[in-house]
């Protein structure tokens, strides 16, 4: 059996599994559709959260990005894991106790205001839509690279699969498919990593093994004119701010927060965050190892290569356009150098994960497994985001504002309809990606950091903050961060460099400042306004204790 056949077989089997789970776990009420009936075990929720969280970008692109950034890649590693500490300690248990179905519902009740709820709905929809478009595109790209299907066709296939389990099962269907998807994606990620670790070092564990290639990699990098792999290029303040923005943004992403509404008790929400991070860390500690191994291997293979004696995997990936060479000086040697004039290779970062199985000489079925893993990562995240979109529409907008008298059956119908519509819109963006999507996905974290995180945090830890402060904070945080990003991407792209940035903070890291702006404005407005009424203060008191 060839690579193509294996890939079709493994991807096909994984899809059958997801649909089978979806049919087994249909939602019968809004309680099941929104929070899977609230009876998910902490372990299962941990796995589902891990799959929900790790997107196509984590699976396909992250190791490649780290591979080319070296030390600076740490911002993603720390940023996208450290946020779970904030989530576990500062948000998840209290929100579970509060018992709302959505983040906007919490904001609306805590601040006793439909305006605050509406602002929160807009934030949730904007963040989720920009994020989900990237996932659908990712599904299309995986299909086109591994199965030779058009990107458009790939997006449509992805839409059909998500449609079946998100519309049918809601949170219930999504939760149990995400558990399966986590298993598929983590197996697909670690198997090639273990093999490549054995190939490059004597260690079976990539996390330990890659210590052995660090000095070799530093030497190779500087020899070719690159910065040493373990030295960074970014300024410390920017590294600090990007890391903080990603951490705070992670904790503020609505599709991650709602996962903690599905467990039975407060203590389960705490434990579940621990499991989630543990499962995420399996991939996040493997990624830097893969990055270092693949970088070393890549440099040693192509730094001074004979065009007649290139290994097979180089030829295979040149066909896809992810790798290209041109012997500019015609001397029969292909050089890979930092200096653009002397460099004769063009390398797409995604190749680091995608070509791994072939570089390590693994059997054909592993390539199929990697394809299934990448699809699992993209589909699970897309489903989680679509659920946030549909619940925002049905629970917050329809039931909360338009038709509060609607019965459960009618609300469920609206939820399904909203999920179906959201799938279609997301698919549309996947087929025709608007230019802003690729950029804004990276900034979704900054926006979440400067809107949701402070408003939820203050809602729990302050009894004094009320409507006016919260709304002013959210709006000013969003305007500040959004404005900074728009300024440097559209209005003045020429000065989008360390010298042009405010305090040397890149648009990627500005969410940190946005969160501070939000908190400052909220607290300032709070000093001039009346404290919330006694019933809201009692609500906060109840939220702070697990029982009672």
């Amino acid at each position, binding site marked *: 059996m060839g690579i193509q056949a294996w890939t079709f077989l493994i991807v096909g089997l994984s899809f059958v599994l997801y649909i089978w789970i979806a049919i087994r776990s249909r939602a019968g009420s809004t309680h099941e559709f929104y929070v899977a009936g609230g*009876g998910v075990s902490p372990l299962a929720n941990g796995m589902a959260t891990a799959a929900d969280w790790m997107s196509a970008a984590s699976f396909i692109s992250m190791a490649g990005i*780290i591979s080319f950034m070296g*030390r600076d*890649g*740490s911002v993603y*590693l*720390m940023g996208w*894991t*450290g946020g*779970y*500490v*904030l989530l*576990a*300690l*500062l948000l998840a*248990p209290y929100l579970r106790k509060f018992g709302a179905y959505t983040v906007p519902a919490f904001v609306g009740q805590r601040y006793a205001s439909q305006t605050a709820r509406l602002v929160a709905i807009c934030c949730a929809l904007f963040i989720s839509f920009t994020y989900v478009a990237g996932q659908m595109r990712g599904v299309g790209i995986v299909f086109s690279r591994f199965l030779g299907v058009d990107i458009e066709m790939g997006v449509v296939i992805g839409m059909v699969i998500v449609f079946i389990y998100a519309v049918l099962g809601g949170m219930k269907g999504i939760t149990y498919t995400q558990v399966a998807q986590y298993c598929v994606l983590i197996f697909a990620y670690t198997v090639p990593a273990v093999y490549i670790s054995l190939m490059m070092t004597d260690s079976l564990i990539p*996390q*330990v093994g890659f*210590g*052995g*290639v*660090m*000095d070799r990699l530093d030497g190779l990098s500087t020899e070719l004119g690159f910065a040493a792999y*373990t030295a960074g290029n970014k300024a*410390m303040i920017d*590294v*600090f701010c990007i*890391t*903080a923005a990603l*951490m705070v943004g992670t904790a503020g992403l609505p599709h991650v927060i709602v996962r903690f509404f599905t467990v*039975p*008790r*407060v*203590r389960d929400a*705490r*434990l579940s*965050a*621990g499991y989630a*991070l*543990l499962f995420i*860390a399996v991939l*996040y*500690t493997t990624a*830097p190892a893969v990055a270092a191994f693949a970088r070393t291997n890549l440099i040693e293979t192509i730094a001074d290569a004979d065009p007649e004696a290139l290994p097979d995997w180089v030829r295979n990936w040149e066909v896809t356009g992810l790798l290209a060479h041109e012997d500019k000086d015609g001397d029969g040697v292909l050089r890979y150098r930092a200096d653009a004039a002397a460099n004769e290779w063009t390398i797409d970062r995604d190749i680091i994960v995608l070509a791994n199985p072939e570089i390590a000489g693994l059997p054909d079925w592993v390539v199929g497994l990697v394809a299934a893993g990448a699809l699992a990562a993209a589909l699970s995240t897309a489903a989680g985001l679509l659920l946030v979109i549909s619940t925002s529409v049905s629970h917050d907008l329809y039931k909360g504002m338009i038709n509060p008298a609607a019965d459960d059956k009618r609300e469920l119908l609206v939820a399904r309809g909203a999920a179906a519509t959201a799938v279609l819109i997301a698919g549309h963006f996947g087929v025709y990606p608007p230019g802003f999507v690729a950029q804004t996905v990276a900034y979704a974290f900054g926006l979440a950091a400067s809107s949701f995180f402070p408003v939820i945090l203050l809602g729990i830890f302050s009894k004094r903050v009320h409507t006016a402060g919260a709304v002013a904070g959210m709006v000013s945080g969003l305007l500040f961060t959004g404005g900074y990003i728009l300024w440097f991407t559209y209005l003045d792209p020429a000065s989008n460099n360390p010298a042009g940035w405010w305090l040397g903070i890149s648009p990627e890291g500005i969410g940190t400042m946005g969160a501070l702006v939000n908190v400052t404005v909220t607290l300032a407005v709070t000093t001039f306004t009346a404290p919330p009424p006694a019933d809201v203060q009692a609500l906060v*008191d109840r939220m*702070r*204790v*697990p*029982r*009672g």
Partner: protein
Amino acid sequence: MHAYWVAHLRILIVLLLVWFAVSFGAGILWADWLDQFRFGGFKLGFWFAQQGSIYAFILLIFAYVAIMNRHDRRHDVHEEEEGS
């Protein structure tokens, strides 16, 4: 109730200080200095930035779970063993 919450906040602050120290501290602010030490082939600052901080985060959350469950029981606000 007040005593519960004050002690609760104190636990959170201590844990968050550790969280800050292992990531922003060891991985960013003091990383260059830590790089003079070696650990399993890694420069220590680099190891914290790409491995150590993540392990520390996991330990932190599980420590938090254990400490909070005990704290809840001590103040008699813990949940029943079966569901809520």
